[in-house]
């Protein structure tokens, strides 16, 4: 069983704390994605699992074994790097064989392993070429091949798709998912791209400034973000945020902000509803907004002035100015012609609103 358990792992460089209190249990064959902006500590965490960085504090176990003191080569892991890290002066075949030869595996077994990996990744015709003769996608497949032939307990991926162009990236994502079905292995995948995180991960760990913001399935992160950062990070186009004040008045919640005033049923926050006046940030995804006024009691409306439209072919994204902020609406009919400066009304169901504490950024949620 190849579980990976990180227990209160910490890493500092001088006075800068790169990773703080990182605790996570990764199940056997689970594919976990670490995602976050640059400098959030995701790569550092991955490299600590690999053994390329010393662990500051805490323990990391692989397959039930604590690996803090073990060299990378003894941890039974394999890693794919952002710029492939292939051995440039060896053929593809030798690249794949290198790790096995170093471990004194008999040649026939090496050949069998290479043949199988090459078949899985469709790189058989490339075996005798040098890395420099390969395209980016091919090189990345060879890097994957290097992992597969070793058949380790854990695969580690350090932003492997970041060097590829957008189209290739989408294709490689598919290939990675297919590979997962053929060679299911516990995996830790690091990326800064939330689309990769959402499409590839069984579970996602969102990180910021060395701290874990939230751990959950893609859908959980999308629907129930723990705080404002996760809400704004996951999902594209990003969630709209509007600051304002929430007060209780005549058993309606009134949310007032620059350019808008909304009357909300108190049930949406349940027991998390604040007493008195409370500074809050309200969030609503562009996908949950519709052009047009409220169509029913469960809906609320906003008004604003059209600023820009972005044509995507199957939909338009429209930005209207409410107060001093731009609010974006997705899913607008692509054939609709709208002139900047037009006054527009948009509406959304109240169940799609998120409220975040203005100071802590935590999402307010009812415990009942």
């Amino acid at each position, binding site marked *: 069983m190849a579980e990976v358990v990180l227990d209160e792992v910490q890493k500092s460089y001088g006075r800068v704390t790169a990773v703080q209190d990182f605790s996570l249990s990764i199940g056997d064959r689970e594919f976990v994605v670490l995602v976050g902006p640059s400098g959030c500590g995701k790569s550092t965490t991955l490299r600590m699992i690999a053994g390329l960085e010393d662990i500051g504090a805490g323990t990391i176990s692989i397959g039930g074994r604590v690996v803090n003191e073990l060299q990378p080569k003894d941890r039974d892991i394999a890693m794919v790097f952002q710029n492939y890290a292939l*051995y*440039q002066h060896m053929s593809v075949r030798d690249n794949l064989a290198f*790790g096995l030869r170093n471990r004194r595996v008999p040649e026939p077994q090496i050949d069998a392993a290479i043949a199988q990996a090459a078949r899985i990744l469709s790189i058989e015709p490339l075996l005798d070429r040098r890395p420099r003769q390969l395209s980016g996608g091919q090189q990345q497949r060879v890097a994957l091949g290097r992992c597969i032939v070793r058949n380790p307990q854990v695969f580690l991926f350090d932003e492997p798709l970041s060097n590829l162009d957008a189209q290739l990236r989408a294709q490689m994502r598919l290939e990675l998912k297919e590979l997962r079905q053929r060679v299911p292995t516990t995996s830790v995948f690091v990326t800064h791209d939330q689309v990769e995180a959402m499409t590839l991960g069984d579970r996602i760990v969102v990180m910021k400034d060395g701290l874990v913001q939230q751990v959950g399935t893609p859908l959980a992160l999308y629907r129930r973000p723990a705080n404002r950062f996760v809400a704004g990070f996951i999902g594209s186009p990003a969630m709209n945020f509007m600051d304002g004040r929430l007060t209780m008045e005549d058993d309606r919640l009134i949310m007032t902000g620059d350019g808008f005033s909304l009357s909300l049923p108190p049930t949406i926050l349940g027991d998390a509803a604040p007493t008195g006046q409370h500074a809050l940030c309200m969030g609503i995804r562009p996908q949950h907004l519709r052009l047009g006024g409220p169509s029913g009691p469960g809906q609320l409306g906003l008004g604003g002035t059209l600023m820009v439209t972005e044509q995507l072919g199957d939909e338009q994204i429209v930005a209207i100015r409410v107060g001093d902020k731009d609010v974006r609406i997705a899913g607008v009919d692509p054939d609709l012609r709208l002139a900047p400066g037009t006054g527009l009304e948009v509406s959304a169901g109240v169940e799609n609103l998120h409220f975040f504490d203005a100071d802590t950024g935590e999402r307010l949620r009812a415990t009942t």
Partner: protein
Amino acid sequence: MSLTLNERTRFMLALIAPAVLALAFFQVVPILVGANTSFRDWSLHDPQRTWVGLANYAHVLADREFLRVVLPNTFGFMTASVACSLVLGLSVALMLNRRFAGRVIVQSFVLLPLMVAPVIAAIMIRWMFNDQFGVVNAALGGLGIGPISWLTQRWTAFLVILMTDVWLWTPWFALILLAGLQSLPPEPFEAAQIDAASRWRTFRYITLPMLRPVIVVCVVIRSIDAFRTFDIVWTISGGGPARATEVFSIYAYVESFQFLNLGRGSAAAVIGAVTIVIFAMALYRILNRYVEVSR
């Protein structure tokens, strides 16, 4: 369009004009003069400078001293010096590439020979190997080994000259190779760590191939310079004992300024020049292709 081309061309030529002039007057012209001299019987006692065609060349090429001693000396010295400096320089570079306490101090020591004039280095080492009062013989005497007369025998004298050259040029190799090592990407080495490569295997299969372009350039440059060595041989042995350690540049100098046969000296110089130019071009082409392939 043709106007722009002209202006571009003019700019190009203007950029190199001073260099071309300097080169022309102070390299091309002397070489031509030297070539001219080599075809004439130009001794200081014969002011006529009569044309003798290839007689000087024939004399030099038939000179047993030249063929049996000078050329082997020169090529042998070149090979030995470059090989030793390369190996030693690579070792030093590998050592300096790791982070360790006192690294800056070691680095400063390594840079020391680079600022010492070859003449001074020759003087220092000649003094160390002085047969009566040199420190080397004193140390050997302490071990019970009799005093060796270093500069009166061919092979020991050569050893001293070789050591001087290696002392002078190892840091050059070390610095350039160190810069090369530091410019290598770290990821293949991390991958090698994960691939359980031992330090030797990492060096042989990853470091060395990646350093090959740098090594090739260093070897070519240094070989060409080693061929032309004059300073240290002149200062240490003067080409002795009895011309046994003569290298090609000393031979030409001796012919010209000691035997005062400028014609023959120039002929020798031209032969050497042609030899090294051919050698250098061949080396450049071979290694260029080699570097291309290994890419």
